[in-house]
């Protein structure tokens, strides 16, 4: 039996995203556990794990964020295939190698078969690097990784029985995935990616509270320093043990990057002003204003047709 679990802070979001995904792939005997969030995501996920840990027939526990929608009919087939190797502890659809901290995306990403669907600015999709099967980059491959993006985590029965999310990290949400994958690897098991197709309905605001994220980054690095090769090392520059040089380098990097972000925002605002001026030009043109009655009539006609079609629909 494959179980599905979700920790919910927004029932509307769950009903719109995670639940349809569960319904799409669940088997008749699948158990779907939709819990209200219990404090942190760490604690909520532990509650979900505990609720299936004593099931002898458990094949996997699929933990999904409330805003993640599984859209892959073959999800369970792919998951069972990935878990055929008894050494596999956890499976996901996005993963990277040489991951040194909770910013796993700064490692070498090997697989990411999801779409980032945002609702701001009229909405849109950003397909990740392995979303389209016919456009895979040369470095794309499923298989063993250092860590997974936690929005979809599929735990093996072994992981369900032996590993828990570390509530002691003191974080609400950040770093749970990286820490969990490190626990799996420390226990000698594997973290792997599989070609699950998932839509992540997520804002374009990637870090909503940088202060909290920074604290989690520090705590996870402190926990794993010396326990797992590479973890906590800097991305580039000074030697790992030269803390003074590392501080200097990173402080400068942070300052430079903040400036680049401002630069990006200024450029975006300039582009926005340019396009808005073009829109304004169209809207204020004589031809657009004189043809406004035609567009209104056309819109009215469409509405009438749509309402007639809606009235006819139940009869069919």
């Amino acid at each position, binding site marked *: 039996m494959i179980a599905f679990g979700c920790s919910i802070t927004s029932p509307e979001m769950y009903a719109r995203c995670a639940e349809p995904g569960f319904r799409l792939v669940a088997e008749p005997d699948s158990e779907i556990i939709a819990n209200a969030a219990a404090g942190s995501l760490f604690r909520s996920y532990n509650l979900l794990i505990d609720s299936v840990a004593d099931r002898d027939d458990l094949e996997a526990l699929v933990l999904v964020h409330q805003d993640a929608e599984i859209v892959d009919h073959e999800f369970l087939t792919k998951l069972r295939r990935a878990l055929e190797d008894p050494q596999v502890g956890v499976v996901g659809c996005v993963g990277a190698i040489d991951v040194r*901290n909770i*910013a796993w995306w*700064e490692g070498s990403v090997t697989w990411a078969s999801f779409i980032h669907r*945002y609702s*701001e*600015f*009229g909405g*849109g999709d950003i397909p990740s690097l392995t979303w389209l099967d016919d456009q895979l980059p040369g470095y794309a491959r499923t298989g063993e990784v250092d860590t997974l993006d936690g929005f979809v985590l599929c735990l093996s029965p072994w992981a369900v029985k032996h590993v828990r999310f570390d509530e002691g990290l003191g974080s609400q949400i950040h770093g749970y995935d990286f820490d969990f994958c490190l626990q799996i690897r420390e226990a000698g098991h594997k973290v792997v990616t599989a070609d699950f197709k998932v839509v992540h309905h997520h804002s*374009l*605001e*990637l*870090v909503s509270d*940088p202060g909290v*994220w*920074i604290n989690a980054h*520090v705590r996870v*690095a*402190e926990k794993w320093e010396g326990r797992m090769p590479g973890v906590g090392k*800097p991305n580039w520059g000074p030697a790992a043990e030269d*803390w003074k040089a*590392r*501080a*200097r*380098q*990173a*402080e*400068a*990097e*942070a*300052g*430079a*990057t*903040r*400036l*680049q*972000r401002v*630069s*990006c*925002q*200024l*450029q*975006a605002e*300039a*582009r*926005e*002003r*340019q*396009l808005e*001026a*073009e*829109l304004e030009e*169209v809207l204020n043109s*004589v*031809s*657009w204003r*004189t*043809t406004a009655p*035609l*567009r209104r009539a*056309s819109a009215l006609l469409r509405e009438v047709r749509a309402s007639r079609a809606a009235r006819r629909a139940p009869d069919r």
Partner: protein
Amino acid sequence: MIAFGCPVTDSEAYHRFAAPGIERAREPDSAVYPNSSAGSIFRAYNLLLDQAAAHEDLEALVLLHQDVEIVDPGFCAEVREALADPEVGVVGCVGALDARSLAWWEGAVTWASFAHRYYEHGGGELPAFAMEPDAQPMPYARTGVVDTLDGFLMVLSPWAVRTLRFDESLGQFDGYDFDFCLQVREAGRKVLTADLKVIHHHSLELLSNPERWIEANIRVIEKWEARFPRVGAQIGSAADDWKARARRAESEAAAARTLRVSAQMQATARERELLRELETMRASTSWRLTAPLRWVSARLR
């Protein structure tokens, strides 16, 4: 005599921006030095200092970037007023307090009387907070003593011209202003902002070479941290706890990179939205039907 100096790497930019501004501001006896740039900006500025120092009647040396245009007709009067205090070593139009690194803009900016004029995306202007005469003044806006200035315009007192030099060991470009202001302050003199109005004709790309900037930031902090305790100090960890500082800074840098990606994604999404709207309008039947009218109208104009 108030002298003007500008190191030039792009003649066209100098003739479009700095030269007209200097002509607007200069007095009949002003010396003007448009030098070709000699290696680094540190070295180029030192050459200008050497040239200006030879003038016994020097009242001030105005150093400006080639893309800076002085638009203030009362510029020289403002300069004289600011330099009336003999303790003042250097004056600028943008400055901040509690500046701890090359990223002086992360300190508390007290004055910024310039407009950033850019040419990308159809061009435009971003007036800084002290450049909008009709806008309500910012409560924190004030000229006076600061920790550092933005170096695109620096007005040096005769004492500074004759006593100090830009530190050529620091690099090519970044940090010359922060380091110079620290030298002025270390010598017990004042760094001051004044209401000097300029336009900075500059790309919206604020950091063209991050690695060079990072290296310069490290060098400048290493040079000054023992002499100015706040230089290099960071929020959240004691200055001498290097491990804690490194951990925190590495986390901040990673967060900053992620936020930058987020900003880029938002920018792309907003652009897509506006392009969609434009596309919908231009593809509409009414817009297409009236195309001949617009063509005729354009021809008539």
